[in-house]
């Protein structure tokens, strides 16, 4: 059965506070422009910014350990497939991005950690909406189709996206 769970207040308050400050404070955290979202080939329809932390068996950022370490034990991760921070710019109205699974070529679990509170969300294939609440963790079976969205009430919608076994 394809399952998901939502855990609020996942990180201890001081750990979360430091991590979110590091990522969301203006001028501190490098973000890279991406000209599509969720495998869409429609360039210039949606865009966002990301910060790759880990991919293809190696860290891709000095921020990898400081950001991901609290989740390794907290979730019980055996092997990381990919870790990255996503930042979706505010839009006039909420835009829902394409439904997808992060990796369709290997069994994995997906975690979405909400770094700031906003009116954006993750929508699962059964219609369930998981709202963006700071320090909330959504863990789902990697086979569950889902989609992200933008928000209208914060400059950026920040999430940490983890794929793991």
């Amino acid at each position, binding site marked *: 059965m394809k399952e998901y769970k939502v855990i609020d207040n996942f990180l201890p308050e001081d750990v979360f506070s430091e991590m979110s400050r590091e990522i*969301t404070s*203006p001028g501190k*955290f*490098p*973000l*890279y*422009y991406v*000209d599509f979202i969720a495998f869409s080939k429609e360039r210039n329809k949606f865009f966002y910014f990301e910060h790759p932390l880990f991919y293809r068996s190696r860290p891709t950022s000095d921020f990898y350990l400081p950001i991901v370490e609290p989740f390794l034990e907290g979730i019980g991760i055996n092997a990381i497939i990919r870790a990255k921070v996503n930042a979706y710019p*505010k839009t006039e109205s909420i835009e829902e991005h394409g439904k997808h699974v992060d990796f369709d070529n290997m069994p994995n679990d997906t975690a979405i950690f909400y770094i700031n509170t906003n009116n954006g969300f993750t929508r699962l294939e059964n219609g369930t909406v998981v709202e963006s609440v700071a320090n909330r963790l959504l863990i789902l079976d990697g086979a569950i189709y889902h989609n992200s969205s933008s928000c209208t009430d914060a400059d950026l919608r920040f999430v940490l996206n983890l794929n793991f076994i």
Partner: protein
Amino acid sequence: MNNYKVMDNFLPEDVFKNLSDLILTPGTFPFFYSNEIADGDDPGIYFIHNLFADCFPISPYYEAVMNPLIEHMGINTLHRSKVNAYLRTEKIVEHGRHVDVEGIPMNVAVFYVNSNNGFTRIDENNVVSSVANRLLLLDGSVVHNSTTCTDQDLRVSININFL
């Protein structure tokens, strides 16, 4: 008398292509979120990448981005340089009127990295469109403002203050 000058096709094509590819290719160039545009009262956010400030290069991309511009502009003394990336908006938003540096006689250059329908407004009657590889030179005392654009994800320019 015009107190600004526009130079199109400023960099040689191959040099410009290298520079614009470096900055515009998705996933290659780090930008930093800023919630203060121009005078700080502007709505919205933009992304910046500081290259040079306080008499020192502050980015590993400094030489790759600035060397061609310094060479072709003949800059002797650089005060500040940064890459600005304004996010696409539903309608064009004009940011606050400002001079970049107050109290120091300084020249301003805006180098347009991509073409879009945003612009730099000099005054009520004069705007400079964002055309890739265009350089705008301004006397530093000229009040001006930037804008967003509606036809590209990002409006990217390099802002240079120099003597």
